[in-house]
């Protein structure tokens, strides 16, 4: 299916065929990472601005490398040490950046919906690189690419997403994508961290790690943010780890021998994942990171690589 959207804001709004277009394109672009000269001319003369209002090493670097390998000019704009710190509003900052005629603006913001706001305000393409607890579409796409490469297909696979589902944009984007592609999703975590929307989206809910990971093809562990403890949602890290930490013993006793272990990073070693599991044979955490570059290349290429008049018609 051809790509016609101006922006990539959510997985929720995409059709299954569009998700597959992104995943297929990313799969094709992976080969560039293995070349001696990691550069192709596809986005020569295009400008990509990384506009990051939240800290991020992995995602920002990954977008930066993706843009550079496609020959785009990539400019990083972080909120600290910029006009945002001097009190300029988000939309004003974005308009000023837009006045420099970028082709794509990649936005990360702590407020849900910030990228959608920019997409309405600006005529260039907007990519959501994570907005609040809403969505993180490129992370879901790289997770899906990793799953397909390891399992060969999507339809009929079962996945357990474990941890702080309520505050996770990664979980939300993945749930939308996985359901559209015919996968079964179980979300698991302490009741305080399971959002009401999980069942509405057709997920099974489990409150015991041992039940959630039984017979699934993929286990996706989420990072536990320490702030959740201070907000009173979990009693202590130690208790969380005791009930929800994925250890070798638990894996051996309850999970299938060919299960994939995923984590969007950064890992809290010893909290949600024991080090032996994070570094173990079923872990594909580093595959996920390298797939991230291919996915972001695919997104930039599909948004900025085609006919600008058509793709950016408002």
């Amino acid at each position: 299916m051809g790509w016609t959207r101006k922006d990539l804001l959510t997985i929720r709004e995409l059709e299954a065929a569009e998700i597959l277009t992104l995943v297929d394109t990313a799969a094709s672009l992976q080969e560039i990472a293995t070349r001696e000269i990691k550069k192709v001319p596809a986005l020569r003369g295009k400008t990509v601005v990384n506009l990051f209002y939240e800290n991020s090493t992995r995602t920002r670097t990954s977008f930066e490398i993706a843009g550079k390998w496609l020959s785009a000019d990539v400019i990083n704009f972080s909120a600290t040490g910029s006009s945002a710190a001097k009190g300029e509003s988000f939309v004003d900052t974005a308009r000023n950046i837009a006045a420099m005629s970028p082709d794509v603006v990649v936005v990360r913001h702590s407020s849900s919906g910030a990228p959608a706001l920019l997409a309405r305000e600006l005529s260039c393409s907007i990519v959501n690189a994570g907005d609040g607890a809403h969505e993180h579409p490129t992370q879901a796409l790289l997770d899906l690419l990793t799953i397909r490469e390891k399992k060969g297909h999507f339809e009929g696979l079962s996945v357990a997403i474990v941890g702080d589902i309520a505050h996770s944009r990664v979980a939300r984007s993945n749930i939308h994508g996985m359901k559209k592609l015919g996968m079964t999703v179980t979300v698991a975590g302490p009741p305080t961290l399971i959002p009401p929307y999980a069942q509405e989206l057709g997920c099974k809910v489990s409150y015991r790690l041992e039940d959630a990971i039984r017979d699934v093809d993929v286990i996706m562990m989420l990072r536990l943010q320490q702030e959740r403890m201070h907000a009173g949602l979990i009693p202590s890290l130690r208790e969380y780890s005791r009930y929800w930490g994925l250890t070798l013993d638990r894996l051996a006793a309850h999970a299938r021998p060919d299960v994939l272990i995923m984590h969007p990073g950064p890992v809290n070693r010893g909290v949600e994942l024991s080090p032996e599991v994070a570094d173990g044979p079923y872990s594909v955490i580093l595959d996920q990171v390298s797939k991230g570059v291919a996915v972001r290349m695919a997104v930039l290429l599909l948004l900025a690589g085609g006919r600008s008049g058509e793709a950016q018609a408002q």
Partner: protein
Amino acid sequence: MTARPSRLREKAEVLDTAALDRALTRIAHEILEKNGGAKDVTFVGLRTRGVTLAQRLAAKIASIDGASLPVGTLDITLYRDDLDMIGAPVVRATDIPFSIKDKTVVLVDDVLFTGRTIRAALDALIDLGRPKMIQLAILVDRGHRELPIRPDYIGKNLPTSRREAVAVRLTEHDGEDRVVIEEPEEA
């Protein structure tokens, strides 16, 4: 790289199954003759039918000379000069699992038209390494070049008008081995 009119009808058959096979056999012999054997010769086919033709040429050389030559796949989408004129690009994988450094690369495509695809392929190949030599093998040369590009091996020279299309049909993709010339239906 040129968009085809939507509705076409067959105007004439250019190569039938036997003629297509003879053309490939001849090109295989020419490749061996020109390069003094099969040493250091590699094939790179352009997606999609160029790859199939490259595999057939390699098989022919294997049966003539006994040499097993590697065949790679090249997708030139990222190197097109008209990316700004098409819709969102459809990229498929490039897969050349051998080094082309200091090798003779025979680039294979089904139809040579404006030459812009080959220009893109040359750029793409050179980004992958520095071959000793690049040669071009084409099943049908239909003329109308827009760039100074000339094939080394030609299955069939076929003068065409710009409104016509040349369809190379191969068993692996189309269920038959045939080359036909097509013209718009309203003509």
